[in-house]
């Protein structure tokens, strides 16, 4: 292709290049531009710049607070999918080998994280209750790396609060502390007690008053 006709071809797709970057072309138009791009590094570079500008427009959309319990529900769905991603035991050695040789296969680390006995993990979620207006949710994962995750919103306090759990035998244990900012906080920690023994999760303010609590069924 001589330079003149190349320039003419570039000029012909200029409008469509921007429209492609911003996602405004139909299938036929897109196919024509993509065919040109295959042989044109200049327009390909131009498209990348325009696409970055189009992506930047999305940053103008204001953030918004999702409904209470959003993070817990989403994480629970991730967990459900994570479980289904696990490979049978026969694959585990291969997966470990794959990690050793540096292949970033998704199931590799997952298999390593599983306990040798293949303990199944489960997630329990529960809504926070309160008499203070605070809302939120708690998520407790069992399994070899048990952890607790909670989101609190609309709490009547800010600053450091304590998350404590009450166990089946009545003991109470501090899981950790986290901060609430304007009544909002999201936090998680690894559990040092058997997750199945947890009956109640509480959020306690600095004066020792319980801000919110959640009951977990066994």
């Amino acid at each position, binding site marked *: 292709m001589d330079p003149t006709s190349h320039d003419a071809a570039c000029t012909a797709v*200029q*409008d*469509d290049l*921007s*429209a492609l970057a*911003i*996602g*405004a*072309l*139909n299938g036929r*138009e897109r196919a024509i531009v993509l065919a040109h791009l295959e042989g044109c590094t200049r327009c390909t570079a131009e498209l990348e*710049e*325009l696409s970055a*500008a*189009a*992506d*930047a*427009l*999305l*940053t*103008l*959309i*204001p*953030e*918004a*607070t*999702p*409904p209470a319990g*959003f*993070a817990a529900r*989403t*994480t629970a*769905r*991730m*967990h459900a999918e*994570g479980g289904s991603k696990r490979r049978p035991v026969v694959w585990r050695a291969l997966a470990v080998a794959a990690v050793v040789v540096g292949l*970033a*296969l*998704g*199931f*590799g*680390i*997952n298999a390593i*994280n599983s306990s040798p006995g293949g303990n199944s993990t489960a997630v329990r979620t529960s809504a926070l209750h309160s008499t203070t207006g605070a809302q939120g949710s708690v*998520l407790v994962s069992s399994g070899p790396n048990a*952890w607790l995750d909670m*989101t609190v919103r609309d709490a009547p306090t800010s600053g450091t609060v*304590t998350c404590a759990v009450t166990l089946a035998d009545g*003991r*109470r*244990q*501090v899981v*950790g502390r986290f901060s609430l900012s304007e009544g909002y906080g999201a*936090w*998680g*920690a690894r559990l*040092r*007690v058997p997750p199945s023994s947890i009956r109640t999760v509480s959020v*306690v303010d600095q004066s*020792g008053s319980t801000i919110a609590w959640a009951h977990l069924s066994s």
Partner: protein
Amino acid sequence: VSGTGATGPSLTVVESVSNSGRSRRRSPWSTHEKASDEALVAGMAAGDERAGAAFVRRHERRVFGIAMAITMNRATAEDVAQEAFLRAWRHAAVFDARRAAATSWLSTITHNLAIDALRLQRAVPIEPNDAVWQEMDSPERAPDAQAVHTDAVDRVRAAMRAIPEDQRRALVRSAFYGQSASEIAEAESIALGTAKSRIRLGLSKVRDILSGEEE
């Protein structure tokens, strides 16, 4: 049993006895909370659910904001936002940090899902959402908008204000609401070529301003 102090008078601290006998406490969570987005995505690719949970917490407001601005329905927006995080979880292994920031990647996933949901919801042409216009047009930041306003966002807003309104409308219709050039032409009662020209002139100018070639 070792107490950690300052727990409030009504609490009895009962720590489980660690196997190693060491009393030094570290928060196992802090590694996730402080990790970069890219590190969290790498953890998600490896099936690390705590990395996924941290990623959700960090970005839930951004993702829900996009879903809400496009669909204008809280229930639909939650479905879209959950699905966006699940897609990120499923496809974390193919995320290429050299090509895009994780936030940009996640925003694009969310946006595409929101557009799909919007198309399912409505057969009629979409009119731009007032909230998005206000956010962009108001010289003052909306008082209730808790977006993280950075220099980068301010520059995008300034760039959008620097272009003529007809071009800005074309960009908003396509970039936010997924309208094609022909849908824009129909909605604005203009020729298809005019709609494409507006997109080109507007987006080129925004690109130039963002890249510092033009102020």
